[in-house]
């Protein structure tokens, strides 16, 4: 079997809303990913350092505080500086659509808002980290019908 997909789930800044991050982390684990969760109140520097140390395939940043236009670009910049600019930076939270588009133009991956299924997120990361951009794009646009094993079935 191929190496498991390794994802760093991170909470940046002062935001304490961790319900979504934990649910997504649990679903990814049940879908067979290796998940590293940073815990709360991380600086962009701490997150990128963890991403390098853990040799992850993707960084998934959860931001519900409205500070996404500050924190995503900073994490991206630091990832590039640390030589892991090719690692997927994705995430979710309360992020207006126009901000998602602006962040995508900077090089951030797809971002996910309220109401997204964990399956959609898992499919997207699976597609994007395998360099299968077509699949990644499709998964990002619409949740796949035949996703991986139901994320919840293992519990």
């Amino acid at each position, binding site marked *: 079997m191929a190496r498991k997909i390794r994802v760093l789930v991170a909470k940046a800044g*002062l935001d304490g809303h961790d319900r979504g991050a934990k649910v997504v982390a649990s679903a990814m684990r049940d879908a067979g990913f290796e998940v590293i*969760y940073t815990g*709360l109140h991380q600086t962009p520097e701490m997150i990128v350092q963890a991403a390098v140390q853990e040799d992850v395939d993707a960084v998934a940043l959860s931001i519900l505080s409205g500070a996404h236009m500050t*924190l995503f670009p900073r994490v991206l910049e630091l990832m590039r500086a640390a030589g892991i600019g090719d690692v997927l930076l994705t995430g979710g939270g309360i992020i207006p659509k126009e901000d*998602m588009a602006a962040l995508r133009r900077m090089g951030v991956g797809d971002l996910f808002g309220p*109401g997204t299924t964990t399956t959609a997120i898992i499919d997207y990361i699976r597609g994007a980290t395998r360099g299968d951009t077509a699949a990644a794009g499709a998964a990002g646009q619409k949740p796949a019908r035949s996703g991986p094993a*139901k994320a919840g079935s293992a519990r």
Partner: protein
Amino acid sequence: MANAARTETRTEPRKRETSRAPAPDSAALSGAENGATPAPLFETLSGIPVKPVYLPEDVKPGLDERLGEPGKFPFTRGLHPEMYRKRLWTMRQFAGFGSAEHTNQRFHYLLAQGMTGLSTAFDMPTLMGYDADHAMSFGEVGREGVAISSLEDMEILFRGIPLDQVTTSMTINAPAVVLLAMYVAVAEKQGIPPEKLGGTVQADMLKEFIAQKEWICPPRPSVKICVDMIEWCAKHMPKWNSISISGYHIREAGATAVQELAFTIADGIGYVEECVKRGMDVDEFAPRLSFFWDVHNDFFEEIAKFRAGRRIWAKLMRDRFGAKNPRSWQLRTHAQTAGVSLTAQQPLNNVARVAIQALAAVLGGTQSLHTNSMDETLALPTEEAATVALRTQQIIAYETGVPNVVDPFAGSYFLESLTDRVEEEAMAYIRRIDEMGGIIHAVERGYPQKEIADSAYRFQMQVEEGRRVIVGVNRFGGEEEISIPVLKIDPEIERRQIERVRAVRQRRDAARWEQAMKDLRDACRTDKNLVPYVLDAVRAYATLGEISDLFREAFGVYREPAVF
């Protein structure tokens, strides 16, 4: 709209996020690849099974005793004999964004619209004890609430509002002692003594470690400072609620109604025990303890939760803690509709959700209520959305006839049976926490945190399997673009707030500040009640961040173990 033209709060139409919305086609999400619709769940949101019909035998004997009369022990039917006929609940809309000036304008607007109590939302740096110019505040100033760094901001926040004529709730926890002191200091400047001030400071640190996750120091010193406030307010602020023991955040983080009730009451027990350990008489402080419930979609279960909560607390206070004053037995509560139940998809639907939840809170006998705005899954509310939310309460109060009769569901076979069941299940949790050595131990072990995360995950999976329906999300989705205005926070606010706090540090009386800070630092090394020292520090314009830094230095910084 009075303030709609402000540049800092310009409203912009924005499109519904169809690309991120789970599939409009319900089959994709209903787990129904085989074409079958999943079986409906005949159970409450807490997982309590519900029967098709309830009969007299579903109500256990002894109902009269469990109910009591309205206004009498065990207060199942409500705290007052006539409830809303005599006095409606307080309509208290949570507001705060941008700078103190902006929020002050919103307060004036809401008061003019008939709101009867103020409720302040603070931004993340304020909640975490950082001044606007701290590195951790970068990008977060004024975004989720109002930015308060020093007494000067607080003076602006309440400008033109006589503090003896309103009651003010402040949603602040880790640095609550600083904000309480600032409020008292602003009142002093208005010539109003603390004993005339009415309101609430949330100051419930246990639920921060359990759910909301905004802290400065570890649990034990944090609780010590909460108890300092309870003690000081009992002596100096007879009309002030020194704590709001909050289930809201616990629920929003994913707890069920039963878990919300259980963990919140367990927190309440924790505070009472700490106060008693300090030698306070329970009747000295218990009448000023207040609570805060979430009110979610499961209509009957929510009503049952309010009723069961009052009964559990009354019994605990009288029988376990020996309180003699009937006011000590009363669980007084604020309620807020469930933010987590609102959807970014089809946001206008949220108006209906909020109305139904608000009705449950009123039928449950709440003392005050915040109704969420339809746009809160997208951003902080616009003035228009906040007005609709307030109007929803006014419609319940003045058009429906609901407030005319006290506890109208009493005697319902279903509701009485459900109230009993919610009480039993919550008490089972409370006993488990007692066995762990109390809530502080349980929190340090991460027990309620884990239970909540598990419930959140279970709920999400039920939604993804289509067993729980969320209208407009996993069923009845549509492709139509619905755009509602969204409040924007001008990044310029951060820069100006940084300038202001730096100017305050330059301008203040340095000698007075230094003395007050030294006194506070020394007091932190003792068991002394810190409130008077913090009060002196804020009077000397010590900033929120400076005082919080003293706490960090004296008590350490909390780091949560990263588990999921």
